[in-house]
């Protein structure tokens, strides 16, 4: 009996070990791809396989990175863009969810507004950029508006769809307990749609970056989007690629934060 127990323990330990090895291999290959890509880039640039003027090189970008940190200008640009993106992201998502709640509340309103939503969703939102800048002025408010407007409608449509998909028997249970429409929304519709809201958050992280960077292309004196467009104009592609890598890094961090939120909100 005791021996069987011991073997069972060993089997479990072997399983855990196998799991850990697998995990280590995945991490190894991820790191290998990273190192391989940047070394190849560096080598290609050094040996002129690619035009170093156009494609720069990791070492030049690194030197620029150090320079930008030491003169403090990176923080200025990063702060501006991060603030605009996070503000656009939060405003877009919350406004989208609120609009979805209004649609859910009034069936008639949702039917009336439906064709307009379809048109607004199909329209490329960045094309509204010039109008937004004229309307709200050439400042960070316009850029935040760009970051928000790009995700509002799609959030509304996706979340409204989730509101409608909930099993009506949950509503029946609540109504039989005497719940009003407001209580039904709070107790069933809203919490049941958390998973959908989180996945639209994940989409919106990417969308807000698009809106803000395009907004900065159009009008700005600071920000990572400004660095890209400036670098392009003076033909400094080291600066362009530098800004791009910073954006990729912080977009990934924002995505990770949303995933953290997901783990907190949704019980596995």
């Amino acid at each position, binding site marked *: 009996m005791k021996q069987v127990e011991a073997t069972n323990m060993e089997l479990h330990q072997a399983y855990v070990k196998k799991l850990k090895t697998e995990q280590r291999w995945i991490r190894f290959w991820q790191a290998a791809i990273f190192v391989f890509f940047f070394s190849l880039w560096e080598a290609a640039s050094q040996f002129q396989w690619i035009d170093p003027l156009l494609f720069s090189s990791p070492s030049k970008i690194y030197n620029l990175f150090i320079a930008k940190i030491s003169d403090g200008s990176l923080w200025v640009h990063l702060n501006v863009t991060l603030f605009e993106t996070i503000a656009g992201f939060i405003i877009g998502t919350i406004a989208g969810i609120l609009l979805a709640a209004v649609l859910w509340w009034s069936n008639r309103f949702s039917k009336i507004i439906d064709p307009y939503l379809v048109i607004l969703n199909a329209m490329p939102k960045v094309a509204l950029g010039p109008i937004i800048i004229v309307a709200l002025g050439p400042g960070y408010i316009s850029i935040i508006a760009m970051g928000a407007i790009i995700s509002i409608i799609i959030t509304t449509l996706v979340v409204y769809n989730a509101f409608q998909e909930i099993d009506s028997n949950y509503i029946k249970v609540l109504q039989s*307990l005497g719940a009003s429409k407001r209580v039904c929304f709070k107790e069933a519709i809203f919490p049941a749609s958390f998973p959908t809201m989180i996945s639209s958050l994940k989409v919106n992280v990417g969308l807000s970056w698009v809106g803000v960077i395009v907004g900065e292309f159009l009008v700005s004196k600071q920000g990572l989007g400004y660095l890209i467009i400036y670098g392009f104009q003076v033909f400094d592609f080291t600066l362009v690629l530098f800004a791009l890598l910073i954006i990729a890094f912080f977009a990934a961090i924002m995505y990770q934060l949303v995933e953290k939120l997901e783990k907190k909100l949704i019980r596995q």
Partner: protein
Amino acid sequence: MPLLTVNQVSHHYYSKTDYTKALENISFTLDQGEFISILGPSGCGKTTLLSIVAGLISPTRGETILDGDSDRKAGNKAHMGYMLQQDYLFPWKTIKENVLLGPKINKKHDASMDQRAKKMLEEVGLQDIGDSYPDELSGGMRQRAALARTLITEPKLLLLDEPFSALDFQTKLRLEDFVSQLLKQYNKAALLVTHDISEAIVMSDRILLLKPRPGEIQEIFKMPGELRNLPPFQARQHPSFQEIFDEVWKEMSALETS
């Protein structure tokens, strides 16, 4: 005075081109502590009838009077407990939070309610699992938790919409006995919708047999006293069970072939 009076209730479902008569001229009464089953083939409007009694939909014609009150819209729903085919426990709430849903909605949630919820869960045989989530429980346990959620609001009338149909056979038999005993203990009235003849026979005092399209009462069967006083499981083994089963079966088969 009966607890519930259903008076000439008819209900139609409309579509663009047509309308369907779901229920036609249904009348019956239900006394305090009485158990009535509504039996019929699928599509005979059983669930519609239950929703009308619950006040969730208002009938095209006729009225329902619960405890002398015919105004069924204005918040009187709290006098009802509704149980569905599945438990419909909210998966993101603990069992205790699920049970306390009724008091919370009716703004009666306080410390004494917490105690009541604990007692209620003990009553249905679910001690010490108040902090678990529904997906950690078996089907039978979940349905018992749903029962606790229904009973904590002290409903005058229990509406049961095939609450045992999604359970495996053994759990179903055990839960039938349990619900029946609990209803007798609290002297609660209940209206059960089912298509299971034997379940209707062993649980009820009376059976209303509905015929489909339109849903009308075809026949009312009164269960003999010797079956009514037995717990469902023992009633199934009583000699007169088979007799009644055959009688109801014959009537119901005639409905489906006609």
